[in-house]
């Protein structure tokens, strides 16, 4: 599937709105300013995913997107390992940096993922005028490439050759925390979103 410039711009705007909502909630949780990068949107061949996500351990909070949109897409909050402890410390009011992650950290990560991803979907759903809901979250602390290729492989019947990578970075300078939101829509969901965006741009008379 080829995306036109107009479609990419529309998706970028959609992502911008979602990410801004997510950044606001993160900012509230941390009581700190969050800066947000311009969302990056790319069509990537599966053989090149390793150029974008590697094998450095990270915390990944994963959601399937449900609701009034064709389901099957995934949203993923990605926090590099170096930021995980700083994030959970800031949330839990702890200071010890040199410690192992425990159940408290895992609940904190699920919580922050839930809140940010729900906000992201609220923002995008408002624009598209439909309800989009996240599935219960799943936390993986492992190699990001391994997680993402498993998601792609699990959609076996679609036999995916290309994915749309949408990512935006959210950074808190005060806490030195980095995170990214990835959206991997599958083709039916992508087509559905694009159709709705095009209707917004060219409303039927």
């Amino acid at each position, binding site marked *: 599937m080829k995306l036109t410039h107009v479609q990419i711009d529309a998706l970028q705007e959609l992502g911008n709105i979602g990410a801004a909502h997510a950044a606001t909630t993160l900012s509230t949780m941390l009581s700190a300013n969050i800066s947000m990068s311009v969302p990056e949107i790319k069509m990537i061949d599966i053989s090149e995913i*390793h150029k974008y996500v*590697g*094998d450095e351990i990270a915390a990944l909070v994963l959601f*399937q997107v449900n609701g009034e949109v064709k389901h099957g897409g995934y949203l993923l909050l990605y926090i590099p390992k170096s930021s995980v402890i700083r994030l959970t410390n800031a949330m839990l009011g702890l200071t010890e940096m040199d410690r192992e992650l425990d159940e408290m950290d895992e609940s904190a990560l699920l919580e922050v993922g839930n809140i940010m991803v729900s906000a992201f979907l609220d923002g995008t759903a408002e624009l598209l005028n439909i309800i989009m809901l996240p599935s219960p979250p799943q936390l993986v602390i492992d*190699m990001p*490439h391994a997680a993402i290729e498993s998601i*792609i*492989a*699990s959609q076996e019947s679609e036999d995916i050759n290309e994915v749309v990578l949408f990512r935006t970075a959210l950074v808190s300078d005060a806490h030195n925390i980095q995170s990214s939101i990835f959206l991997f829509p599958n083709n039916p969901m992508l087509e559905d979103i694009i159709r709705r965006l095009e209707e917004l741009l060219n409303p039927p008379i």
Partner: protein
Amino acid sequence: MSLMPAGTDTAIIGIGEYRVGSMPMASIGLGSCVGLILHDRQTGIGALVHIMLPASQGKTDRPGKYADTAIDVLLKELSRSGSSPANLIAKIAGGSAMFKTFSGNLNIGERNVEVIRKLLKDNNIPLKGEDVGGCVGRTIFYYPKENGKLVIKKGDGKLSEL
């Protein structure tokens, strides 16, 4: 940063890709995918393929992506570079289940491994080493010139060798 040196001469094999040769080869972050190595003990040449799904169901455009077409294409390419099937050994890594609760085929890793084992058996290629399953990611480095050494780095940081 990778723990292991992926030098500039290391060929990175992405999802659905394969290479045949004697240079070091690597696959980054295997999850449910399986890295299959066919190594020629006589010539020090071998192949690495990054398999994503068990069955091609007639598709031929990406032979490295599916277990059945991957083994066919590797055997063909290895024979073209002078390997005799009798000298080949196999090693596999990957095939894990990274998630527990999502919809979709969550046992794809296990099915990949099963199909590959069967195809190796059908082709009389001995499976000399495997590190498969669990719920952990793996990065693998294959060194054809060092007797087909396969170094595995796991998501929890542990290194091992096959």
